[in-house]
């Protein structure tokens, strides 16, 4: 049995019919068609699926889509201002924070939430704040530098 719902992703409302068991990641990727968020593990370990729900980061693979009704959902596709990259996106590119790029969407979303909550984090706070997002390429160095640079450090 499918349930009618509306999900608001990056400011756009999408009327949908979903199985109640559909997770948020699947709804956004497979039904809405925004594939920027990635599935790396399906059990909240890797963080590649991270989205913001009313500004709070969640692992979308482990969150029911229907629970997100009424919330503002933000994915990596919603971070830039039109064609202008968000400062964090630009800093990831400038400072070697991107290699294969598969963790990048979740990492950018987590870092956005981190800086919203704590605009002047210490390096340790950045590292702890991003410890729910796994990266196998960069050793985290460029990512941490990027977040610190955006916070003016």
């Amino acid at each position, binding site marked *: 049995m499918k349930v009618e719902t509306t999900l608001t992703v990056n400011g756009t409302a999408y009327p949908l019919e979903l199985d109640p068991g559909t997770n948020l990641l699947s709804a956004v*990727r497979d039904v809405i068609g*925004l*594939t*920027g*968020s*990635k*599935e*790396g*593990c*399906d*059990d909240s*370990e*890797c963080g*590649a699926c991270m989205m913001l729900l009313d500004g709070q980061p969640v692992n979308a693979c482990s969150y029911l889509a229907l629970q997100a009704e009424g919330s503002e959902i933000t*994915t*990596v*596709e919603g*971070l*830039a201002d039109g064609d202008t*990259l968000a400062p964090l*996106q*630009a800093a*990831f*590119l*400038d400072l*070697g924070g*991107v*290699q*294969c*790029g*598969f*963790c*990048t*969407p979740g990492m*950018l979303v987590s870092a956005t939430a981190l800086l919203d909550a704590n605009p002047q984090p210490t390096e*340790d706070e*950045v*590292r*702890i704040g*991003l*410890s*729910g*997002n*796994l*990266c*196998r*390429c*960069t*050793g*985290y*160095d*460029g*990512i*941490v530098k990027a977040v610190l640079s955006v916070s003016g450090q």
Partner: protein
Amino acid sequence: MATVEEPRTFIRPDGKEKVTGTGRYTADLVLAGELVAKFRYTDHTHARITRIDASKARALPGVLAVVTHEDVPDVLYGGMVQDRRLFAKDTVRFEGDIVAGVAATTAEIAEHAAALIEIDYEPLPVVTDFEAALADDATLVHPDWEAYEGEESLGRHHNTLGYSTIVKGDVDAALAGADVVVKGRYVTDPVSGVPIEPRAVIAQWQGDKVTVWTSTQVPYAARGGVAHVLQIPESQVRVVVPLLGGGFGAKCDFHFEGHVAALARAARRPVKLVFSRREEFFAVGHRREGMVIEFETGARADGTLVARKARLVLDKGAYCGEGGFFAQMAAMHAHGPYNLENVHIESSLVYSNNQPSSSIRAPTAPQVCWALEQHMDELAAALDLDPVELRRRTAIETGSVTATGQVLEQIAMKETLEKAVEMIGYGQELPEDEAIGVAIGWWPCFASSSGAYVKLNHDGTGTIITGAQENGTGSVMAMPTYVAAELGMKPEDFSLLYQDTDAAPNDMGSCGSQTTFNSGRAVIAAAVDLREQLLDAAADKLEAGRGDLVLADGAVSVQGSPDKSVTIAELASSGAFHGKSLDVPPDGPAAPAEGCVGRLGLESFHAPQLIAHAVRVRVDRGTGVVRVLQVAAAHDCGKILNRIGADGQVYGGVVMGIGQALSEGTQLDENGRHRNAHLTDYKLVTASDAPHIDIAWIETDTPNAGPKGSKGVGEPPCVPTAGAVANAIAKVIGARVHQLPMTPERVWEAGT
């Protein structure tokens, strides 16, 4: 010799799509009418199959195809030994052997159908102890091993897939005459590559031709594999790699492209396979192998290494794949970057019913280096020498001759050691729960042919067409900078057409740290060819001598007459310019390797890369928990062409090395099944675990290196890290941890 100082700016061309989420990885692609693929894996890790009945699965509504061995040509495949079938026929040999594939309209139906397939087995004894599998009376994993086609030099015998030795002088006499002899036995658990992108494959047939989109590091090997297992020409197979979400070796080799192509052909629909994280752990034929490593080294009182004896046993798992060279590669790492007077190293690569091992970033090196570098520190202690001083006295340098007879030219092993030691502050006063450990290692370049085209568009922009595969390192992304430099143009003038087997000449793929070495060389050669064409055309147009022309800033001008000039755009608008490479890889250095067996070419290390890592750790003696606080990594990788890219390889490789050292290890049960095939219990290093890393590049001018004097970069950074961590731990706890990974339990046990 020079040290590279300042980072240079480099924005990767694929960067914007990666940070905006608009880039497409294989699992992001959707084809109209696509079906979902699921596999039915074996229920036993070693058994004979007596019956397969897929009738219930085929009858399930929503199932469009079920494929077993009966539905594909009866052929064996494998990179160095053909020992494997696409779908198991009469025998299953490890947890991930595939008996059948299903294509259905939904994942749930495909999974249900796979479970409905009835399979009867006669279980066979399971070979999980790979050291015991060496015995002549051990159960054979492949009773038909003699009938298999494979590389002749491997030295196959019974369960031994590869056997290699390094022999020099009389090691027993030298041991008997040594002032000090040290022995050690070390064991390593297997390790997984764990790219964050689980692999995905989509296949679509159009007439007799199949297009396969796949997350592979080696598209040409994947194409060859599909053609072989389906017995169709390579011209009927096109492999395209969308963005690749990391590989680390785990996505080398032909893997699942054949299964999905067979399913799509049977279903007459496009079929997509996306692995779960659990499958990415247990079902792939690539992991870092478990090893047993025994060393016995004799030295004179001054440290001179008069004898090294080593015995290595490597767990190959169920199938060979491309990893047949591991016995010799491991033997070369047991030799290590040291001057040795007498040597006897024997290395055996052994079949078992464990998951197949194959290339993972610097295959065999981190484990053997971890053992050897601990062994060297133990020798230093026995000699009452500082470990760094022992390495100063015994490490290779320019002019050294290896035990296989290779004369080493222009290498900076000792310089990297001194730099790492300087950066970490070796000898400083530290709290009693902290210590510094040092380790050194080496890694070869792999020369192979490659090809490329560079064409100009009519507006003066261009396209680089390369067979190279970008796995995230940036090696392909940097190619426009090389081409632009040859043509006096800007990197952003060029687009890249890559990862498409129909577009570019054959390429080895993203493996062996060789993309810049080989594919970069080919791209530069194609740019040089194009430059000559442009200069010819400009000479005609400007009525000037070829020797007077200068190519710079997007134009060709006559030296000394700046007004006589023609832009590249103007030249391009009037002709069809395209450069191509006539690629000849550099010759490797010779090594006579007299008396050595199992020779596959690795007896000489082509343009070797030298690495020294120094690490500072803190150990909690009460819990065994180790924290790496600081790493100093000094590398001789020849000339550095892209500092930000090269640094990125060290940051990532060192952190991967720390994972291998402390937390990453596959636990197998008594039947060779994974017990921790998920990221909850298989622990990668997180941002909060990762230490501060200082990097130094010692640039040397090694003969027969890659373009502009470069050597490989990608694999060396994870070679000596675990050894350096081990040596630091031992200094704190006063004991050696003899098993990798050095988990808190193992450190605590060793220290109490």
